[in-house]
């Protein structure tokens, strides 16, 4: 397994370079006169005859794409990913600063997705065609059919506009003032954990209030997805001979489900989990925008809209890294779930 992991890790830089090359080429094909749009917020700024040339020269947009790419890559190797207009600081610093926000959201979303999704799938699968199964399936169909953008707005409308329970944003202004002016220490950069470590349960509660609506939006779609996969897989495994044998041996249904069915039914779930984790991160683009939360999703969306190319490339690299690492973890988890699978 170690050889497998090492081999996969060695491929990592090649894939990342491929990703950057692709994005870089796409952006540079726009040409220098379009790329200055990143730096010009008012068309009047181009009033002077030489304004365009001046901006192109200032930001080095007139150099050939290969030269620019090599220069950029050289800087990246030195840890300089360029300046982010969206983050108003270096791309790497921006991403590093935003990672905890998005991770916190995505990881907390993952917990209900995996546990509730699997749990509901198991229940549905083991109660096939019974009212419980039908109810869960309706829940899944709604979740799978509603675009997260629409669902997010609905959540906002119900839980904030009407009920006034879960406000948008990251924290209330009062909590942010405490974090800014102290006493407060950023220890893990996960505000929920830091709030506990700082013994500020008021901020913890505030953070949770701000997390619930985005979490619900982000996870509902994947609850639906995971429970559907789990249910199908459960039904398939339930029809296997060894399950019939287990039942014939007189084992209780609980033991049959938990010991013989669930574990085997989880392999397809593990397969889709990799993609799901990446999709959860991608989902933050919508969720962070609707709920006005800081994070990589909102950062990437703003960068793409404003043609902030260094930020776009940086974010793409980050998401590629997540995808590759997640896939690696999924491959490894196959072996752990099913000892018959050997990585070679």
């Amino acid at each position: 397994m170690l050889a497998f992991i090492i081999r996969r890790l060695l491929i990592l830089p090649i894939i990342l370079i491929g990703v950057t090359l692709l994005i870089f080429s796409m952006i540079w094909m726009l040409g220098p006169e379009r790329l200055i749009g990143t730096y010009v917020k008012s068309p009047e700024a181009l009033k002077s005859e030489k304004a365009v040339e001046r901006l192109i020269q200032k930001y080095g947009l007139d150099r050939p794409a290969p030269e620019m790419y090599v220069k950029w890559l050289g800087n990246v190797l030195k840890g300089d990913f360029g300046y982010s207009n969206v983050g108003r600081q270096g791309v790497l610093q921006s991403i590093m600063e935003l990672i905890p926000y998005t991770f916190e959201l995505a990881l907390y979303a993952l917990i209900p997705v995996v546990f509730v999704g699997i749990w509901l799938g198991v229940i549905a699968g083991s109660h096939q065609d019974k009212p419980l199964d039908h109810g869960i399936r309706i829940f899944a169909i709604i979740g799978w059919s509603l675009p997260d953008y629409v669902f997010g707005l609905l959540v906002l409308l119900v839980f904030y506009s009407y009920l006034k329970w879960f406000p948008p944003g990251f924290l209330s202004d009062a909590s942010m003032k405490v974090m800014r002016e102290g006493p407060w220490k950023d220890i893990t950069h996960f505000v929920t954990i830091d709030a506990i470590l700082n013994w500020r349960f008021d901020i913890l509660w505030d953070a949770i209030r701000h997390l619930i609506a985005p979490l619900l939006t982000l996870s509902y779609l994947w609850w639906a997805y995971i429970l559907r996969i789990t249910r199908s897989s459960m039904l398939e495994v339930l029809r296997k001979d060894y399950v019939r044998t287990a039942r014939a041996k007189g084992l209780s249904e609980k033991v049959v489900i938990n010991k013989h069915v669930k574990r085997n039914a989880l392999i397809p779930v593990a397969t889709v989990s990799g993609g799901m984790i990446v999709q959860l991160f991608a989902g933050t683009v919508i969720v962070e925008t609707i709920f006005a939360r800081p994070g990589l999703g909102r950062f990437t969306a703003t960068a793409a809209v404003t043609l902030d190319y260094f930020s776009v490339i940086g974010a793409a690299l980050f998401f590629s890294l997540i995808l590759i690492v997640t896939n690696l973890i999924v491959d490894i988890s196959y072996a752990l779930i099913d000892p018959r699978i050997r990585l070679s």
Partner: protein
Amino acid sequence: MQKKLFVLFICLLALTLSAFAAVKDPDTIVNAEYGAPETLDPHAEWDNASGAVINNLYDNLIKYVGETIEFEPMLSTAVPTPENGLLKDNGKTYIFPIRKGVKFHSGNILTPKDIEYTFERGFLADNSSGAVTLIIEAVSGGEFYTVADWFEAYAGMAYSDAVNDDREPTSAEAKAKLIGFYNEVIDPLFVVEGDNFIVNMKDAFAPFLFIIVKYAGWGSIIDSQWCMANGEWDWKADGWWKWHDRTPEESALHMADAGCGPYKLAVWDQTNNMVVMERFDDYWQGPAKTKTLIFKTVEEYSTRKAMLEAGDADLVLVDPIYRYDFDNNPDIEVISGHPRAQVTSIHMGWKVQETSEYIGSGKLDGNGIPADFFTDINVRAGILHAFNYDALIDDLVNGLGKRVPTDLPEGFLGFDPTLPVYEFDLGKAEKAWKAAWGGEVWENGFKLVAMYNAGNEVRQTACEMLKVYVESINPKFQVEVLGVQWPTYLKATREELCPLYIIGWVADYPDAHNFFSTYYHSNGYYGKRHGGEYNDFAKEYLDPIIDVAVKETDVNKRIEMYAELQKILLENYIATPLYMPQGLYVARKWLKGFFPHLLRSSGDRTPEFYYAWKE
């Protein structure tokens, strides 16, 4: 017992409701906007969001009186006029007596030297994305837009030849010229004599005061001692080029505050997309009424709306299409219909590049248009009479627009409401089309591309509306509506590739010159894009009036000149306004003190925060 419980329930309900109706955090005003500031350096900014923040951090030499565009003193104790002798030499010398006892946020005391430093620093920094170009244009009497151009005229060598990529002079001669340029050209422009700050213009430029007045962030006065202590220009002739045309983030003022305005910067939180400002208690006009200002960037309208309804935002940016969303909410105040210093126009290129991909066959054969299609006055008339202006205003912008005769907003010098506007009259349009190009247009038809920047729904629908009406006149007429991305749009308009496109202009300063020069001068931002034949026309009939009017200090004479200019524009179907957008202010009723202003950044939808409070 039941009765008692009922009374208790009612009391609790009333208490709950009163708690909701109470002013939320009366010491803090929260403004939720769409865009985030680009920079807080006054000499590098040129966008609404930055301007809105800078306006609270900095003060200028003069300011507007309330909603008007009349001036009153600010950091200068008098407004220069010919009458008070502070504007002399035929409009070339401005004298500003500087106020005493004004404190910067750093604790430093304002002196006339700070004003001199401010103007020289702005000039020499001349950030290529910033608006200092407006001051350069004014002080040079309209001759230059950049310091680099001015240097080239002085030194006889291009700035890029004098300074290399490492910001070092390329030779001893270049260095001597750079130093000489500051000593001989820039330094004499801005002078301190006693308590007075004096601007010696190269030539008269009537709108100068409009360019540096409060609400023009680039006219903000900065703390010279703070700047020099924080690595900004050291005020020496030798080396000024090191601070020239940097990227905004290279400036010490990019995320800091060196002003003396009513608020000081507490934090610009990039992560959470918000700017927090705290009241400056030593402000020379007395402390502001509200302690804290928070400007949040919230891209999604539904979120902004929900925040406003919940009272978590006191005012929010609302697009005209959502104008009626708050009609039934008793806690929300909506004020609309006030003028904005902006015009949206339909532009017709008189001479498009022959290579343009947007002119089809390039001939009058029904599959395209000739590159000089719009040189014929009848073609322009045919377009302008086929546009349903009222429908556009009523349906597309929910009535938040007003027709104007030429591309000049209401309220500006020279605006004449008695001038006619083009009628939507398909009969007149048909007559014009029949006469166009000696009848050839009517006979052969054409295929015209109408362009807009993708994502702008108003402009898209306006183009589609034009398509419907023009195509209804003659089945041989075809209009293709094309949305292109903003960078492509920018490039295509600049390179004279667009035959017909819709775009707007927001005033940099409230003077007619800013619009007339931009739209109609042969060298104007839009004017020059109309191509060679337009330029010939403009040089003969329009430029002479525009050039003279901008130097004229007698207001009545200027009005006469602009009246003559507008007559020519209308007779020749050169003025092409669609509408002037009108303001929309949406806020909680507990927020008081709003008055709109044409020139304040977001001044149609946010108050002047110094005067705003909650109750």
